[in-house]
């Protein structure tokens, strides 16, 4: 088992998703699932890529990830519209396990309500929510 980690530059949703917002481009965010989520899922075998233009609503599922254990919903940490999808995951879904904050990113979203980020957790608060 790789070591758990929760980078400080990300925002976290309690349902184990992260959002990365580049200060130079605060209207867009990259989404992915956390180390905890990929560890709980087990080895990921399929990521169902949403179509470009798909509306993502905060707290609602926007796509699915299939692991050897189960098919699970992926929850949107923020609301917006999908502007890019990580196509490389089609051939190597294991990137979600191996590098959940890097090569395992899922989608890029143009945010419809950037103020929503206020309700997300920082790394310390998310770690505390995991009880570790």
């Amino acid at each position, binding site marked *: 088992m790789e070591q758990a980690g929760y980078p400080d530059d990300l925002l976290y949703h309690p349902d184990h998703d992260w959002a990365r917002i580049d200060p130079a481009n605060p209207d867009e965010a990259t989404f992915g699932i956390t180390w905890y989520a990929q560890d709980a899922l*087990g*080895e990921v*075998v399929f990521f169902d890529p949403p179509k470009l233009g798909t509306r993502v609503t905060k707290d609602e599922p926007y796509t699915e990830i299939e692991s050897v254990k189960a098919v699970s919903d992926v929850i949107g940490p923020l609301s917006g519209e999908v502007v890019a999808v990580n196509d490389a995951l089609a051939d190597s*879904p*294991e990137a979600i396990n191996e590098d959940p904050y890097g090569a395992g990113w899922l989608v890029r979203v143009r945010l419809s309500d950037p103020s929503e980020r206020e309700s997300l957790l920082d790394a310390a608060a998310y770690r505390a929510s995991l009880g570790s």
Partner: protein
Amino acid sequence: MSATAADDQLTIFERSRAGRRAFVAPASDVPERPLDELLPARLRRAAPARLPEVSEPEIVRHYNRLSRRNFDLDTGFYPLGSCTMKHNPRLHERVAALDGNARLHPLQDPRRAQGALELMWRLQEALGEIAGLPHVSLQPSAGSHGELAGVLLTRAYHEDRGERRTKVLAPDTAHGTNPATVTMGGYEVVHVGTDADGNVDLEDLRAKATEDVACLMLTNPSTLGLFERGIQQIAEIVHGVGATLYYDGANLNAIMGICRPGDMGFDIVHFNLHKTFAQPHGGGGPGAGPVAVADHIEPFLPRPQVVRREGAPDDTIGTGSDGRLGHFDLDYDRPRSIGRLRGFQGNYGVFVRAYAYIRSLGAAGLRDVSETAVLNANYLLARLRAIGVAERLPVAYDRVCMHEFVLSGAPMKRDLEIRTLDLAKRLLDHGVHPPTVYFPLVVDEALMIEPTETETRETLDRFADTIAEILREAAQDPEIARTAPHTTPVRRLDEAGAARHPVIRQAL
């Protein structure tokens, strides 16, 4: 790899040598007709089929070897939760093998198959009594097939009343087949939550039970092995919005002769004859998933139905085995039926074994089956607690369980750094089939154990000791479990690799 091990890996085609033969048919002693008269050349193969050419002892050894690589109930303990892997009494095989049962042709005229039809009719009657619902169809041939029948019956019932409903409710602990069946039946699945005690969350159910809900699919006891205490309120809520209440019979082994789904308010029930009624299963079939329904669903049952008619047509025997005048028939005159669900009448051999099971046990015996199944599960749970396993594998919901229980491997994963999957794989090295793992999804690192009524106390004790032994071993060296199994014909399979890069074509 030793010579024997290498030989073990050969396929029947790799054993083939040109010209080698097993049985050779003697020369024909009747006049032969030219092949062209029997089958035109354009319909025949240009070259002979490429079949393996092997001697008879090689064939026998090959398949005998393969059979020994299997794990089955005749080999060892098989506590696969939600699957009811109980012993299959050998008496049933004798009965199923009787010529009148085994050699009956499925196209036999019903007038010449009265015995078989009577057996099916009596099985319907018995199942109806066990379910507390009077009308039974034996056609569905698997649990999932029974579920599909249930959803199609629900649709037919609502459409007959001129109603168009779009959703079906299922608990978040439901068998995966429930949402799959709902989707296949053209409905949208809506999940209902589980409360702190492991029951259906009644508040959530009330909120989601709207006028566009067609059905609630439920199993009782639930997949957590717990009796749904609120079943009466659940039935009231579901019927209050005009929906049907569907009973997934996977867990019927816990309640036979004690309480009946029909009395709980269920409208449609499916049985798994291959689970509850002791059929050999686990190899993909054949199974049987009959459905029992209430009066208001009866008109929609599959066609044809096995029925008993009064009076005897001229050329039948005239009476059933109880001496009553009458005969048995296939009733096609069912205008509102959902239609046929399969060819012929179902897996007849399964019916014979199930009927033999029910008749040899009787009502009191069936109740004893369920009571012993529940007792065995509670004994095993208590035993695991008594020897300290519960610290690492606590029960997910701390209540008296029914015929099975669900443990959580989360503390084991945290403290010993082995997952439930590793424990399951290590059990194989101890000659035990692993329990169901990672289901239901609401339990982290779930391990679902169903010992059934046919195991002895010694077997249960040995299983508990084995789990304790694996935990002790992992505390010393977790790598042994992580790389298990070590003694099986194939070792740890690359499940993720198989799913990511499936090889779906094997060249011969």
